[in-house]
């Protein structure tokens, strides 16, 4: 697709979509949303990028190496937070009891490990959808 209008619009839109996705992801504990929706939005923005600029360019931006690290990293962050719970409070995935700062309910920095978990989920969801889309549309060279 070599349409200049599509390219320009996409170039302007994509950062905003990603920004909104990150906003949704980080505000999971104070407003509707959370890791799933935010991660899906970031993922879709990359899908848009792929559709407009082609898969080769998109793969440069989000290479397989990065996606591999993001996939394992999302879960490893989750497990690490869970293990902190075991060490500090004697139970897997403990939040406030394990010493995570509670903060003021309603503010951005509150909820202990909840925003961290949301980031982990968001990374996982986003990278999953990008990788899956790339894998699905990738034609084999005959």
């Amino acid at each position, binding site marked *: 697709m070599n349409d200049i209008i599509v390219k320009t619009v996409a170039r302007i839109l994509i950062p905003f979509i990603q920004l909104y996705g990150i906003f949704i992801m980080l505000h*999971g*504990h*104070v*407003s*509707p949303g*959370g*890791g799933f929706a935010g991660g899906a939005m970031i993922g879709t923005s990359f899908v848009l990028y792929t559709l407009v600029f082609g898969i080769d360019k998109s793969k440069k931006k989000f290479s397989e190496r990065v996606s591999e690290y993001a*996939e*394992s990293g*999302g*879960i490893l962050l*989750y*497990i690490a937070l*869970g293990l902190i719970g075991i060490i500090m409070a004697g139970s*897997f*995935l403990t*939040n*406030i009891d394990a010493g995570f700062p*509670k*903060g*003021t*309910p*309603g503010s951005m920095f*509150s*909820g*202990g*490990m*909840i925003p961290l*978990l*949301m980031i*982990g*989920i968001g990374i*996982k*969801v986003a990278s*999953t959808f990008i*990788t*899956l889309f790339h*894998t*699905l549309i*990738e034609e*084999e060279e005959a």
Partner: protein
Amino acid sequence: MMMKRVLTLVLFLSLFGLLAHNVMEMPGKFTVDAPAYNDTTQHYLDNAPSETGAINVVGAILADYRAFDTLGETIVLFTSIVAVASILKVTDKKTREESHDE
């Protein structure tokens, strides 16, 4: 052929009829008196901000009270990537041709 289609349609319609009949007996309009709105719900709504620090109760349950479910769900995503890669990723041309021959 036509007969078979009509039969399956009747079968599914009667399944729906059975389910609809059953579901009509269940508690209808949900209020705070509904059986599902019990002490668990009340506890979440009253104590979630003080116990977890998050005012969005859905987020609090998702990532704190029932965080183990969410761990399971991220593993589903991880598994789906591995599964899709295991059938779609081209490892190299030779193995593909071998495996598609037969």
